[in-house]
């Protein structure tokens, strides 16, 4: 017997994310980002989002460029080989149009792990002595957002203690990364919500459990029974997933292990074009507004997507051009 159906459409999924939400995503830099949903959020003109991410990438550059984001809290943003840094974040930082909060990558991973385990913090010794811990650079604090009004925003950026057990010295307590909604882009989800992730799973299991609402967008919705025959291959249990969406190529232009590679040309063009707000607006006009996901795929065209398609033995594309030439 199955649960009440969790299946919804892409636009219904975007509607679940309210203005002002604390939002996070699956994936890693330019891999397995739920871009199809991000485009839909931009079409729906979502505002005042607080992104809190283990690391960031093109999906957040889209949202930031479109003016959907008030707070960006993470450790990294860029396009890897295809764009040196996040030009839209950089522009809005320079123009003081966004609050940015920097942690280290391990700190962000531990923050999500803490939230996923229902712990208020975890202890780490990374990044001691760096400006990441500079108390003047607590940007949420400077903005007055650590007043306890939003119960998910910690009242301090860090809390330093000494190890009481082994004399191991200074420990940095990093607060749990509590989020309202997590959106994941994965290969397969069962019709009751069980998630199977192929390849590196990044921080997806933690991210799903750190959120109050978890939306999973998958290349395929498959029979739950099939996934349950090999439960050790699954990464997120049914009851942690609230909504599921079937959407092929949901991560484009980022890549999806076993399904398709990163569209480097798309990212390089985006990075180059959107270093100005005018450039971003043109990009959005061309690739986001006035299109739905099917229109977007049609615009990309079959030959381009065929080049990105992963070799099923190697799990990555052997046809995509990756070199500089």
């Amino acid at each position, binding site marked *: 017997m199955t649960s009440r159906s969790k299946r919804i459409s892409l636009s219904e999924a975007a509607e679940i994310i309210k203005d002002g939400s604390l939002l996070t995503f699956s994936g890693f830099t330019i891999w397995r980002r739920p871009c199809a949903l991000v485009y839909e959020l931009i079409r729906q003109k979502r505002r005042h989002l607080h992104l809190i991410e283990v690391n960031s990438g093109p999906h957040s550059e889209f949202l930031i460029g479109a003016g959907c984001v008030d707070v960006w809290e993470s450790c990294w943003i860029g396009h890897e080989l295809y764009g040196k840094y996040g030009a839209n974040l950089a522009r809005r930082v320079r123009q003081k149009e966004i609050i940015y909060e920097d942690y280290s990558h391990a700190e962000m991973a531990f923050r999500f792990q803490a939230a996923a385990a229902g712990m208020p913090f975890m202890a780490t010794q990374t990044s001691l002595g760096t400006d990441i811990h500079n108390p003047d650079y607590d940007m949420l604090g400077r903005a007055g957002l650590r007043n306890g009004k939003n119960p998910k925003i910690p009242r301090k950026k860090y809390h330093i203690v000494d190890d009481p057990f082994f004399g191991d010295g200074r420990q940095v307590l990093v607060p749990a990364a509590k989020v309202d909604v997590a959106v994941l882009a994965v290969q397969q989800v069962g019709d009751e919500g069980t998630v199977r992730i192929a*390849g590196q799973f990044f921080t997806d299991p933690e991210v799903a459990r750190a959120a109050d609402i978890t939306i999973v967008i998958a290349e395929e919705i498959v029979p739950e029974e099939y996934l349950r025959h090999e439960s050790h291959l699954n990464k997120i249990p049914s009851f942690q997933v609230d909504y599921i969406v079937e959407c092929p190529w949901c991560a484009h232009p980022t890549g999806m292990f076993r399904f398709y590679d990163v569209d480097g040309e798309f990212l390089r063009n985006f990075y180059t074009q959107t270093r100005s707000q005018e450039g971003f607006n043109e990009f959005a006009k061309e690739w986001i507004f006035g299109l739905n996901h099917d229109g977007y795929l049609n615009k990309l065209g079959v030959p381009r997507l065929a080049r990105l398609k992963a070799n099923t033995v190697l799990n990555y594309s052997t046809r995509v051009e990756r070199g500089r030439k």
Partner: protein
Amino acid sequence: MKDRTQLAQPGEYTLGDLMTVAAAREVRDNEVVFAGTGMPMIAIMLAQRTHAPRLKLIFEAGTLDGRPKELPTSVGDPRCEVGASVASGLYEAFSIAQRGYVDLGFLGGAEVDEYGNVNTTAIGDYLNPLLRLTGSGGNPDINSFAKRTVYIMVHEKRRFPKNVSYITSPGWRVKNWPTGEWVHRRELYGAAFRGGPSAVISTAGVFRFDEETGRMYLDTYHPGMSPEKIREMCEFDLDISRVSGETVPPTYEEIHLIHHVLDPDEIFLAKPRKE
């Protein structure tokens, strides 16, 4: 036919080749190596195919002891996963690093100071930056947890300042918050102290650190450079008293591996004009 173990002549290799090979030589066999994207990847894959076949490679995104066949374009790339012992996630990779398994980290940076503090976050005042960069990524984490860290950098005078705009990744002398007074890394890290930056490989030379004073010194200068010239290329007073000589160029074998096996598509490294 050329003897592949022989050293190449100027013009037969690029500066990128020289740096990659210098980086690869920092790896010892059997070590656990944690690598970032780009030139570090080629350096490690080169070491894996030459003098360090048993090195264990960790990528931040979750691949443990991978044996990539093709060059990954980033650490999240499916190409990382090929031949791996375990495909896991970031929490696992960083936990393993924090637990003390990592011998060597391989990283990049935009600025480095005399004590090996590296900036990848913002240029200018952090609160009012001239240029916002990518942010830390795993740079401070890998460097905090590894026994040794090697940096690969472009050498410009402004990139070797007296003080970096923002300390993203800790050097040998760091700031003791909340006061911000400078202290030796060993004092701050306590039981977690395992080492620090061991080399900077720039486009000008190879630099090392005196672990007690924490100061950078020039070890080798690249062909065409001189210690004095390099000192002029730093805003701080570079110690050139311990120079050991010129950076050893790549062998023909190494050039072959870089351009015909590891990066034939010139993803990170352009081919030398005459080859």
